[in-house]
Protein backbone atom coordinates (compact mmCIF):
# COMPACT_ATOMS: atom_id res chain seq x y z
CA UNK A 1 0.00 0.00 0.00
CA UNK A 2 2.72 2.40 0.98
CA UNK A 3 4.73 3.74 -1.86
CA UNK A 4 8.43 4.19 -1.38
CA UNK A 5 8.13 7.96 -1.28
CA UNK A 6 5.68 7.99 1.61
CA UNK A 7 7.57 5.38 3.56
CA UNK A 8 7.81 6.30 7.19
CA UNK A 9 6.31 9.75 6.64
CA UNK A 10 2.73 8.80 7.29
CA UNK A 11 1.13 6.14 9.49
CA UNK A 12 -0.60 3.24 7.82
CA UNK A 13 -3.81 3.98 9.70
CA UNK A 14 -3.72 7.63 8.71
CA UNK A 15 -3.13 6.67 5.09
CA UNK A 16 -6.13 4.33 5.16
CA UNK A 17 -8.31 7.01 6.72
CA UNK A 18 -7.23 9.50 4.06
CA UNK A 19 -8.02 7.07 1.25
CA UNK A 20 -11.45 6.42 2.81
CA UNK A 21 -12.20 10.15 3.06
CA UNK A 22 -11.11 10.62 -0.53
CA UNK A 23 -13.40 7.82 -1.72
CA UNK A 24 -16.34 9.34 0.14
CA UNK A 25 -15.58 12.72 -1.38
CA UNK A 26 -15.51 11.18 -4.83
CA UNK A 27 -19.02 9.79 -4.59
CA UNK A 28 -20.42 12.73 -2.61
CA UNK A 29 -21.91 14.70 -5.54
CA UNK A 30 -24.20 11.75 -6.26
CA UNK A 31 -25.51 11.66 -2.74
CA UNK A 32 -26.05 15.19 -1.45
CA UNK A 33 -27.83 18.29 -2.76
CA UNK A 34 -25.96 20.58 -5.11
CA UNK A 35 -25.82 23.31 -2.51
CA UNK A 36 -23.63 21.18 -0.25
CA UNK A 37 -21.41 20.12 -3.13
CA UNK A 38 -20.88 23.79 -3.83
CA UNK A 39 -20.17 24.47 -0.14
CA UNK A 40 -17.58 21.70 0.03
CA UNK A 41 -15.94 22.94 -3.14
CA UNK A 42 -15.63 26.44 -1.70
CA UNK A 43 -14.25 24.98 1.52
CA UNK A 44 -11.59 23.18 -0.52
CA UNK A 45 -10.62 26.42 -2.26
CA UNK A 46 -10.33 28.31 1.03
CA UNK A 47 -8.57 25.38 2.67
CA UNK A 48 -5.90 25.37 -0.02
CA UNK A 49 -5.51 29.13 0.38
CA UNK A 50 -5.23 28.86 4.16
CA UNK A 51 -2.72 26.03 3.92
CA UNK A 52 -0.56 27.95 1.49
CA UNK A 53 -0.62 30.84 3.97
CA UNK A 54 0.31 28.54 6.81
CA UNK A 55 3.45 27.47 4.99
CA UNK A 56 4.87 30.95 5.65
CA UNK A 57 2.96 31.89 8.81
CA UNK A 58 2.94 28.68 10.84
CA UNK A 59 6.03 27.02 9.47
CA UNK A 60 7.95 30.06 8.27
CA UNK A 61 7.11 32.39 11.15
CA UNK A 62 6.59 35.35 8.80
CA UNK A 63 3.95 38.00 9.34
CA UNK A 64 2.24 37.34 6.04
CA UNK A 65 -0.77 39.54 6.75
CA UNK A 66 -1.92 40.12 3.20
CA UNK A 67 -1.79 36.70 1.64
CA UNK A 68 -5.16 37.20 -0.01
CA UNK A 69 -3.55 39.46 -2.58
CA UNK A 70 -1.79 36.50 -4.20
CA UNK A 71 -5.06 34.60 -4.28
CA UNK A 72 -6.68 37.58 -5.98
CA UNK A 73 -3.81 38.02 -8.42
CA UNK A 74 -4.11 34.35 -9.40
CA UNK A 75 -7.87 34.69 -9.84
CA UNK A 76 -7.62 37.95 -11.83
CA UNK A 77 -4.78 36.53 -13.94
CA UNK A 78 -6.82 33.56 -15.07
CA UNK A 79 -9.93 35.70 -15.54
CA UNK A 80 -8.12 38.28 -17.65
CA UNK A 81 -6.26 35.65 -19.68
CA UNK A 82 -9.50 33.80 -20.41
CA UNK A 83 -11.49 36.88 -21.38
CA UNK A 84 -8.88 39.10 -23.05
CA UNK A 85 -6.65 36.63 -24.90
CA UNK A 86 -7.22 33.80 -27.30
CA UNK A 87 -4.64 31.57 -25.64
CA UNK A 88 -5.61 27.93 -25.20
CA UNK A 89 -7.59 27.66 -21.96
CA UNK A 90 -5.26 25.24 -20.25
CA UNK A 91 -2.36 27.68 -20.75
CA UNK A 92 -4.43 30.34 -18.98
CA UNK A 93 -5.04 27.95 -16.09
CA UNK A 94 -1.39 26.96 -15.77
CA UNK A 95 0.10 30.42 -16.10
CA UNK A 96 -2.07 32.14 -13.48
CA UNK A 97 -0.29 30.55 -10.47
CA UNK A 98 3.02 31.67 -11.97
CA UNK A 99 1.70 35.22 -12.19
CA UNK A 100 0.79 34.96 -8.50
CA UNK A 101 4.28 33.62 -7.73
CA UNK A 102 5.77 36.58 -9.60
CA UNK A 103 3.66 38.91 -7.47
CA UNK A 104 5.01 37.00 -4.46
CA UNK A 105 8.55 37.59 -5.68
CA UNK A 106 8.04 41.33 -6.17
CA UNK A 107 6.13 42.00 -2.95
CA UNK A 108 8.33 39.56 -1.05
CA UNK A 109 11.54 41.22 -2.20
CA UNK A 110 10.38 44.49 -0.69
CA UNK A 111 8.83 43.07 2.49
CA UNK A 112 11.65 40.70 3.39
CA UNK A 113 13.96 43.61 4.16
CA UNK A 114 11.85 44.38 7.19
CA UNK A 115 10.86 42.12 10.02
CA UNK A 116 7.83 41.26 12.10
CA UNK A 117 5.12 43.91 12.17
CA UNK A 118 6.95 46.18 9.73
CA UNK A 119 6.95 43.30 7.31
CA UNK A 120 3.21 42.94 7.83
CA UNK A 121 2.51 46.64 7.40
CA UNK A 122 4.45 47.07 4.20
CA UNK A 123 2.79 43.96 2.83
CA UNK A 124 -0.65 45.30 3.63
CA UNK A 125 0.19 48.61 1.94
CA UNK A 126 1.59 46.96 -1.17
CA UNK A 127 -1.36 44.59 -1.30
CA UNK A 128 -3.76 47.51 -1.02
CA UNK A 129 -2.05 49.08 -4.03
CA UNK A 130 -2.87 45.98 -6.04
CA UNK A 131 -6.44 46.12 -4.73
CA UNK A 132 -6.77 49.79 -5.70
CA UNK A 133 -5.53 48.92 -9.17
CA UNK A 134 -8.20 46.26 -9.61
CA UNK A 135 -10.84 48.47 -8.01
CA UNK A 136 -10.22 51.60 -10.10
CA UNK A 137 -9.01 50.45 -13.48
CA UNK A 138 -12.41 49.93 -15.09
CA UNK A 139 -11.08 49.52 -18.61
CA UNK A 140 -8.87 46.58 -17.74
CA UNK A 141 -10.12 44.87 -14.60
CA UNK A 142 -13.77 45.89 -14.68
CA UNK A 143 -13.33 48.03 -11.57
CA UNK A 144 -15.57 47.25 -8.64
CA UNK A 145 -17.93 45.32 -10.90
CA UNK A 146 -15.25 42.73 -11.47
CA UNK A 147 -15.44 40.29 -14.37
CA UNK A 148 -18.43 38.02 -14.69
CA UNK A 149 -19.50 35.17 -16.89
CA UNK A 150 -15.96 33.99 -17.55
CA UNK A 151 -16.15 31.24 -20.18
CA UNK A 152 -15.11 27.86 -18.79
CA UNK A 153 -14.21 24.72 -20.68
CA UNK A 154 -17.07 22.20 -20.53
CA UNK A 155 -14.96 19.77 -18.53
CA UNK A 156 -14.93 22.08 -15.51
CA UNK A 157 -18.25 23.91 -15.77
CA UNK A 158 -21.26 23.07 -13.68
CA UNK A 159 -21.15 22.39 -9.94
CA UNK A 160 -20.36 18.71 -10.15
CA UNK A 161 -17.63 19.01 -12.80
CA UNK A 162 -15.95 21.92 -11.07
CA UNK A 163 -16.16 20.02 -7.78
CA UNK A 164 -14.18 17.12 -9.22
CA UNK A 165 -11.65 19.42 -10.83
CA UNK A 166 -11.18 21.33 -7.57
CA UNK A 167 -10.92 18.12 -5.56
CA UNK A 168 -8.20 16.67 -7.81
CA UNK A 169 -6.12 19.85 -7.88
CA UNK A 170 -6.61 20.30 -4.14
CA UNK A 171 -5.33 16.81 -3.37
CA UNK A 172 -2.32 17.24 -5.65
CA UNK A 173 -1.46 20.59 -4.05
CA UNK A 174 -1.80 19.25 -0.53
CA UNK A 175 0.54 16.37 -1.34
CA UNK A 176 3.01 18.84 -2.84
CA UNK A 177 2.79 21.09 0.24
CA UNK A 178 3.30 18.10 2.48
CA UNK A 179 6.45 17.11 0.62
CA UNK A 180 7.76 20.66 0.64
CA UNK A 181 7.34 20.83 4.41
CA UNK A 182 9.16 17.54 4.88
CA UNK A 183 11.96 18.45 2.48
CA UNK A 184 15.26 20.01 3.54
CA UNK A 185 13.77 23.31 2.41
CA UNK A 186 10.86 22.82 4.80
CA UNK A 187 12.92 21.87 7.82
CA UNK A 188 15.29 24.76 7.22
CA UNK A 189 12.31 27.11 6.94
CA UNK A 190 11.10 25.88 10.32
CA UNK A 191 14.55 26.24 11.79
CA UNK A 192 14.64 29.84 10.58
CA UNK A 193 11.26 30.41 12.23
CA UNK A 194 12.50 28.99 15.52
CA UNK A 195 15.76 30.88 15.53
CA UNK A 196 16.83 33.07 12.64
CA UNK A 197 20.10 34.14 14.25
CA UNK A 198 21.21 30.58 14.81
CA UNK A 199 20.11 29.62 11.34
CA UNK A 200 22.40 32.24 9.84
CA UNK A 201 25.21 30.94 12.03
CA UNK A 202 24.87 27.49 10.46
CA UNK A 203 25.27 28.92 6.99
CA UNK A 204 21.71 29.56 5.84
CA UNK A 205 20.91 32.78 3.95
CA UNK A 206 17.73 33.18 5.97
CA UNK A 207 16.14 36.07 4.06
CA UNK A 208 16.59 34.36 0.72
CA UNK A 209 15.17 31.17 2.16
CA UNK A 210 12.12 33.00 3.47
CA UNK A 211 11.66 34.76 0.14
CA UNK A 212 11.50 31.37 -1.57
CA UNK A 213 8.91 30.40 1.02
CA UNK A 214 6.79 33.44 0.10
CA UNK A 215 7.08 32.65 -3.61
CA UNK A 216 6.00 29.05 -3.11
CA UNK A 217 3.11 30.09 -0.86
CA UNK A 218 2.03 32.69 -3.44
CA UNK A 219 2.08 30.05 -6.14
CA UNK A 220 -0.31 27.84 -4.21
CA UNK A 221 -2.47 30.84 -3.34
CA UNK A 222 -2.58 31.48 -7.09
CA UNK A 223 -3.76 27.91 -7.66
CA UNK A 224 -6.51 28.53 -5.12
CA UNK A 225 -7.40 31.68 -7.06
CA UNK A 226 -7.75 29.69 -10.26
CA UNK A 227 -9.97 27.17 -8.48
CA UNK A 228 -12.12 30.01 -7.19
CA UNK A 229 -12.69 31.24 -10.73
CA UNK A 230 -13.50 27.70 -11.83
CA UNK A 231 -16.13 27.49 -9.11
CA UNK A 232 -17.64 30.98 -9.34
CA UNK A 233 -17.00 32.02 -12.91
CA UNK A 234 -16.30 35.57 -11.76
CA UNK A 235 -13.77 37.78 -10.04
CA UNK A 236 -14.21 41.00 -8.05
CA UNK A 237 -11.90 43.32 -6.09
CA UNK A 238 -12.94 41.84 -2.73
CA UNK A 239 -10.65 38.93 -3.54
CA UNK A 240 -7.70 41.30 -3.11
CA UNK A 241 -9.05 43.10 -0.07
CA UNK A 242 -7.28 42.75 3.26
CA UNK A 243 -10.40 41.48 5.02
CA UNK A 244 -10.04 38.19 3.16
CA UNK A 245 -6.40 37.98 4.28
CA UNK A 246 -7.52 38.40 7.85
CA UNK A 247 -10.11 35.66 7.44
CA UNK A 248 -7.61 33.11 6.20
CA UNK A 249 -5.24 34.10 8.99
CA UNK A 250 -8.06 33.34 11.42
CA UNK A 251 -8.61 29.99 9.71
CA UNK A 252 -4.98 29.09 10.39
CA UNK A 253 -5.24 30.15 14.04
CA UNK A 254 -8.58 28.43 14.46
CA UNK A 255 -7.40 25.11 13.09
CA UNK A 256 -3.95 25.18 14.61
CA UNK A 257 -1.09 26.87 12.86
CA UNK A 258 1.70 24.56 13.92
CA UNK A 259 -0.08 21.60 12.41
CA UNK A 260 -0.23 20.59 8.78
CA UNK A 261 -3.97 19.95 8.52
CA UNK A 262 -5.07 22.67 10.93
CA UNK A 263 -5.81 25.43 8.39
CA UNK A 264 -7.97 22.98 6.42
CA UNK A 265 -10.06 22.32 9.52
CA UNK A 266 -10.16 26.05 10.24
CA UNK A 267 -11.45 26.80 6.75
CA UNK A 268 -14.12 24.11 7.02
CA UNK A 269 -15.25 25.40 10.43
CA UNK A 270 -15.34 29.02 9.38
CA UNK A 271 -17.23 28.51 6.12
CA UNK A 272 -19.69 26.07 7.70
CA UNK A 273 -20.36 28.43 10.60
CA UNK A 274 -20.88 31.29 8.21
CA UNK A 275 -23.23 29.30 6.02
CA UNK A 276 -25.31 27.62 8.70
CA UNK A 277 -25.51 30.46 11.17
CA UNK A 278 -25.97 32.87 8.28
CA UNK A 279 -29.20 31.06 7.38
CA UNK A 280 -30.69 31.92 10.75
CA UNK A 281 -29.36 35.38 11.46
CA UNK A 282 -27.53 38.10 9.67
CA UNK A 283 -25.54 38.71 12.83
CA UNK A 284 -23.50 35.60 12.12
CA UNK A 285 -20.21 37.48 12.56
CA UNK A 286 -21.21 38.18 16.15
CA UNK A 287 -21.66 34.48 16.89
CA UNK A 288 -18.50 33.65 14.99
CA UNK A 289 -16.65 36.22 17.09
CA UNK A 290 -17.86 34.65 20.33
CA UNK A 291 -16.91 31.16 19.15
CA UNK A 292 -13.46 32.39 18.12
CA UNK A 293 -12.91 34.10 21.47
CA UNK A 294 -13.88 30.90 23.30
CA UNK A 295 -11.62 28.79 21.11
CA UNK A 296 -8.65 31.06 21.64
CA UNK A 297 -9.23 30.96 25.40
CA UNK A 298 -9.67 27.23 25.68
CA UNK A 299 -7.81 25.83 22.70
CA UNK A 300 -4.91 28.21 22.09
CA UNK A 301 -3.18 25.65 19.91
CA UNK A 302 -6.22 25.46 17.61
CA UNK A 303 -8.84 22.78 17.09
CA UNK A 304 -6.61 20.40 15.19
CA UNK A 305 -3.63 21.18 17.40
CA UNK A 306 -5.76 20.26 20.41
CA UNK A 307 -6.76 16.89 19.00
CA UNK A 308 -3.22 16.14 17.89
CA UNK A 309 -1.99 16.75 21.42
CA UNK A 310 -4.73 14.52 22.86
CA UNK A 311 -3.87 11.68 20.49
CA UNK A 312 -0.20 12.00 21.24
CA UNK A 313 -0.81 11.81 24.98
CA UNK A 314 -3.04 8.77 24.53
CA UNK A 315 -0.48 7.05 22.36
CA UNK A 316 2.21 7.73 24.94
CA UNK A 317 -0.02 6.36 27.67
CA UNK A 318 -0.59 3.18 25.67
CA UNK A 319 3.12 2.82 25.00
CA UNK A 320 3.78 3.33 28.70
CA UNK A 321 1.34 0.57 29.68
CA UNK A 322 2.80 -1.86 27.18
CA UNK A 323 6.22 -1.29 28.62
Amino acid at each position, binding site marked *: METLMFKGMIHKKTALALVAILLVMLILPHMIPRFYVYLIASILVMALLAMSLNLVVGFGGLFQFHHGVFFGVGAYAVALLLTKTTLPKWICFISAPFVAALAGLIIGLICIRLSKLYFAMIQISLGSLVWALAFRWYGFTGGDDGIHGIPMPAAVSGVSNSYYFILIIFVLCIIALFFILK*SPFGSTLQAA*RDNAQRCEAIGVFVKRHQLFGIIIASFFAGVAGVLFVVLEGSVFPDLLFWVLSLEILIMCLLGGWFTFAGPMIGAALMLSLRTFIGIHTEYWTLILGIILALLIFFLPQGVWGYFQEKWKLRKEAVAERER
Partner: protein
Amino acid sequence: MLRVENLINSFGDFKAVNGANLTVKEGEIVAVIGPNGAGKTTLFNLITGHLRPDSGRISFKGEDISGLPPYTICKKGIARSFQLLNIFPRLTVFENVQVAVLSQHNRSLNLFRPARNMLIEETNRILESVGLLDKSHEIAGSFSHGDQKILEIAIALGNEPEFLILDEPTAGMSPEETTATMGLVKRLTVEQGLTLLFCEHDIDIVFSTADRIMVMQQGKTISEGTPDEVRQNEQVQQAYIGGD
Protein backbone atom coordinates in the same frame (compact mmCIF):
# COMPACT_ATOMS: atom_id res chain seq x y z
CA MET B 1 44.68 30.73 11.11
CA LEU B 2 42.61 33.56 12.59
CA ARG B 3 43.97 37.02 13.07
CA VAL B 4 42.16 39.95 14.66
CA GLU B 5 43.86 43.35 14.46
CA ASN B 6 42.87 46.56 16.27
CA LEU B 7 39.19 45.74 16.17
CA ILE B 8 36.79 48.47 17.24
CA ASN B 9 33.02 48.28 17.56
CA SER B 10 30.72 50.67 19.31
CA PHE B 11 27.06 50.78 20.25
CA GLY B 12 26.30 54.48 20.15
CA ASP B 13 28.91 56.15 22.35
CA PHE B 14 29.87 52.96 24.14
CA LYS B 15 32.87 51.17 22.70
CA ALA B 16 32.18 47.51 23.46
CA VAL B 17 35.31 46.41 21.66
CA ASN B 18 38.06 49.01 21.58
CA GLY B 19 41.29 47.66 20.18
CA ALA B 20 41.12 43.89 20.39
CA ASN B 21 43.98 41.81 19.05
CA LEU B 22 44.03 38.06 18.76
CA THR B 23 45.97 35.42 16.89
CA VAL B 24 44.93 31.79 16.76
CA LYS B 25 47.15 29.21 15.07
CA GLU B 26 45.88 26.01 13.54
CA GLY B 27 45.18 23.27 16.08
CA GLU B 28 45.41 25.57 19.08
CA ILE B 29 42.97 25.94 21.94
CA VAL B 30 42.70 29.61 22.77
CA ALA B 31 40.63 31.15 25.55
CA VAL B 32 39.41 34.71 25.90
CA ILE B 33 38.90 35.88 29.47
CA GLY B 34 37.95 39.11 31.10
CA PRO B 35 35.45 40.56 33.55
CA ASN B 36 31.76 40.84 32.68
CA GLY B 37 31.23 43.45 29.99
CA ALA B 38 34.82 43.25 28.79
CA GLY B 39 33.55 42.65 25.24
CA LYS B 40 34.15 38.92 24.83
CA THR B 41 30.79 38.10 23.31
CA THR B 42 30.91 41.21 21.13
CA LEU B 43 34.32 40.09 19.86
CA PHE B 44 32.87 36.69 18.94
CA ASN B 45 29.89 38.32 17.25
CA LEU B 46 32.28 40.42 15.20
CA ILE B 47 34.31 37.40 14.13
CA THR B 48 31.24 35.41 13.06
CA GLY B 49 29.65 38.36 11.26
CA HIS B 50 26.69 38.92 13.57
CA LEU B 51 28.05 42.44 14.06
CA ARG B 52 30.04 44.63 11.70
CA PRO B 53 33.24 46.19 12.99
CA ASP B 54 33.66 49.97 12.84
CA SER B 55 37.33 49.53 12.07
CA GLY B 56 40.06 46.94 12.29
CA ARG B 57 40.61 43.76 10.42
CA ILE B 58 39.64 40.11 10.84
CA SER B 59 41.34 37.59 8.61
CA PHE B 60 40.77 33.86 8.42
CA LYS B 61 43.35 31.71 6.62
CA GLY B 62 44.81 34.87 5.11
CA GLU B 63 41.49 36.11 3.76
CA ASP B 64 39.79 39.28 4.99
CA ILE B 65 36.41 38.31 6.42
CA SER B 66 35.51 41.49 8.30
CA GLY B 67 31.95 42.59 7.63
CA LEU B 68 30.85 39.46 5.78
CA PRO B 69 27.40 38.08 6.70
CA PRO B 70 27.20 35.14 9.15
CA TYR B 71 26.10 32.55 6.58
CA THR B 72 29.10 33.31 4.36
CA ILE B 73 31.55 33.16 7.25
CA CYS B 74 30.05 29.87 8.37
CA LYS B 75 30.64 28.34 4.93
CA LYS B 76 34.31 29.30 5.21
CA GLY B 77 34.70 26.88 8.10
CA ILE B 78 33.93 28.87 11.25
CA ALA B 79 31.10 27.51 13.42
CA ARG B 80 30.00 28.76 16.79
CA SER B 81 27.80 28.20 19.80
CA PHE B 82 26.11 30.96 21.73
CA GLN B 83 26.28 32.04 25.34
CA LEU B 84 22.53 32.13 25.80
CA LEU B 85 20.65 29.08 24.65
CA ASN B 86 20.25 29.28 20.93
CA ILE B 87 18.72 26.15 19.49
CA PHE B 88 15.63 25.35 17.41
CA PRO B 89 13.19 24.58 20.25
CA ARG B 90 10.30 23.16 18.19
CA LEU B 91 12.41 20.74 16.19
CA THR B 92 13.62 17.37 17.40
CA VAL B 93 17.23 16.96 18.50
CA PHE B 94 17.95 15.09 15.30
CA GLU B 95 16.46 17.85 13.16
CA ASN B 96 18.39 20.51 15.05
CA VAL B 97 21.67 19.00 13.97
CA GLN B 98 20.41 17.85 10.58
CA VAL B 99 19.49 21.39 9.56
CA ALA B 100 23.14 22.36 10.01
CA VAL B 101 24.35 19.28 8.15
CA LEU B 102 21.92 19.98 5.29
CA SER B 103 23.16 23.54 5.10
CA GLN B 104 26.78 22.38 5.06
CA HIS B 105 26.01 20.05 2.13
CA ASN B 106 24.16 22.87 0.32
CA ARG B 107 20.88 20.99 0.42
CA SER B 108 18.85 23.62 2.27
CA LEU B 109 16.91 24.64 -0.81
CA ASN B 110 16.10 21.11 -1.94
CA LEU B 111 12.32 20.83 -2.29
CA PHE B 112 11.80 17.42 -3.73
CA ARG B 113 13.19 14.84 -1.36
CA PRO B 114 12.01 13.89 2.10
CA ALA B 115 14.54 15.35 4.54
CA ARG B 116 14.15 12.45 6.93
CA ASN B 117 16.06 10.16 4.61
CA MET B 118 18.93 12.55 4.00
CA LEU B 119 22.35 12.67 5.63
CA ILE B 120 21.19 10.43 8.47
CA GLU B 121 24.59 8.87 9.03
CA GLU B 122 26.41 12.20 9.19
CA THR B 123 23.87 13.59 11.66
CA ASN B 124 23.85 10.49 13.83
CA ARG B 125 27.64 10.42 13.92
CA ILE B 126 27.65 13.92 15.43
CA LEU B 127 24.90 13.06 17.90
CA GLU B 128 26.84 9.98 18.94
CA SER B 129 30.07 11.91 19.41
CA VAL B 130 28.39 14.26 21.90
CA GLY B 131 26.34 11.48 23.51
CA LEU B 132 22.84 12.61 22.48
CA LEU B 133 22.07 9.80 20.05
CA ASP B 134 19.64 8.01 22.36
CA LYS B 135 17.61 11.23 22.76
CA SER B 136 17.58 12.14 19.09
CA HIS B 137 13.80 12.05 18.66
CA GLU B 138 12.93 14.27 21.59
CA ILE B 139 11.79 17.85 21.06
CA ALA B 140 14.80 20.02 21.75
CA GLY B 141 12.84 22.64 23.70
CA SER B 142 11.92 20.08 26.36
CA PHE B 143 15.57 19.29 27.14
CA SER B 144 17.37 20.11 30.36
CA HIS B 145 19.60 23.17 30.30
CA GLY B 146 22.78 21.10 30.27
CA ASP B 147 21.64 18.93 27.39
CA GLN B 148 20.59 22.01 25.42
CA LYS B 149 24.09 23.46 25.85
CA ILE B 150 25.54 20.20 24.52
CA LEU B 151 23.09 20.34 21.62
CA GLU B 152 24.41 23.84 20.90
CA ILE B 153 27.83 22.36 20.35
CA ALA B 154 26.39 19.52 18.26
CA ILE B 155 24.65 22.02 15.94
CA ALA B 156 27.94 23.85 15.49
CA LEU B 157 29.65 20.55 14.62
CA GLY B 158 27.02 19.97 11.94
CA ASN B 159 28.84 22.48 9.79
CA GLU B 160 32.01 20.38 9.89
CA PRO B 161 34.00 23.40 11.03
CA GLU B 162 37.77 23.71 11.04
CA PHE B 163 37.45 26.51 13.52
CA LEU B 164 35.03 26.29 16.43
CA ILE B 165 34.01 29.20 18.63
CA LEU B 166 32.26 28.42 21.91
CA ASP B 167 30.81 31.32 23.87
CA GLU B 168 30.73 30.15 27.49
CA PRO B 169 29.95 26.51 26.73
CA THR B 170 29.35 25.75 30.40
CA ALA B 171 27.31 28.80 31.41
CA GLY B 172 24.71 27.83 33.99
CA MET B 173 26.01 24.30 34.46
CA SER B 174 26.71 22.50 37.72
CA PRO B 175 30.39 21.80 38.55
CA GLU B 176 29.98 18.14 37.50
CA GLU B 177 28.35 19.07 34.20
CA THR B 178 31.05 21.67 33.64
CA THR B 179 33.84 19.13 34.04
CA ALA B 180 32.08 16.63 31.79
CA THR B 181 31.39 19.25 29.12
CA MET B 182 34.93 20.56 29.05
CA GLY B 183 36.18 16.97 28.80
CA LEU B 184 33.85 16.50 25.85
CA VAL B 185 35.01 19.71 24.19
CA LYS B 186 38.66 18.74 24.57
CA ARG B 187 38.06 15.26 23.20
CA LEU B 188 36.14 16.62 20.19
CA THR B 189 38.87 19.13 19.48
CA VAL B 190 41.51 16.40 19.36
CA GLU B 191 39.38 13.82 17.52
CA GLN B 192 38.20 16.16 14.81
CA GLY B 193 41.38 18.19 14.55
CA LEU B 194 39.57 21.43 15.39
CA THR B 195 40.98 24.78 16.26
CA LEU B 196 39.09 26.08 19.26
CA LEU B 197 38.40 29.57 20.51
CA PHE B 198 36.28 29.86 23.64
CA CYS B 199 35.50 32.10 26.54
CA GLU B 200 34.70 30.96 30.03
CA HIS B 201 34.21 32.42 33.48
CA ASP B 202 35.80 29.62 35.45
CA ILE B 203 39.48 30.60 35.57
CA ASP B 204 40.65 27.13 36.65
CA ILE B 205 39.08 25.58 33.57
CA VAL B 206 40.64 28.18 31.33
CA PHE B 207 44.15 27.70 32.68
CA SER B 208 43.93 23.92 32.54
CA THR B 209 42.41 23.75 29.05
CA ALA B 210 43.85 26.53 26.92
CA ASP B 211 47.16 26.54 25.06
CA ARG B 212 47.08 30.30 24.98
CA ILE B 213 44.96 32.96 26.64
CA MET B 214 43.89 36.44 25.60
CA VAL B 215 42.74 38.80 28.33
CA MET B 216 40.28 41.61 27.66
CA GLN B 217 39.34 44.55 29.79
CA GLN B 218 36.96 47.33 28.75
CA GLY B 219 37.09 46.15 25.16
CA LYS B 220 40.86 46.15 24.96
CA THR B 221 43.33 43.30 24.74
CA ILE B 222 45.58 43.74 27.77
CA SER B 223 47.56 40.55 27.49
CA GLU B 224 47.99 37.60 25.17
CA GLY B 225 50.22 34.58 25.75
CA THR B 226 50.63 31.16 27.32
CA PRO B 227 48.86 30.55 30.65
CA ASP B 228 52.13 31.14 32.51
CA GLU B 229 52.86 34.40 30.73
CA VAL B 230 49.37 35.64 31.38
CA ARG B 231 49.49 34.68 35.03
CA GLN B 232 52.63 36.74 35.47
CA ASN B 233 51.26 39.83 33.74
CA GLU B 234 50.81 42.71 36.14
CA GLN B 235 47.84 44.27 34.42
CA VAL B 236 46.03 40.96 34.47
CA GLN B 237 46.71 40.53 38.14
CA GLN B 238 45.30 43.96 38.76
CA ALA B 239 42.24 43.34 36.63
CA TYR B 240 41.52 40.03 38.25
CA ILE B 241 42.89 40.08 41.75
CA GLY B 242 42.43 43.79 42.27
CA GLY B 243 39.04 43.98 40.61
CA ASP B 244 37.59 40.75 41.85
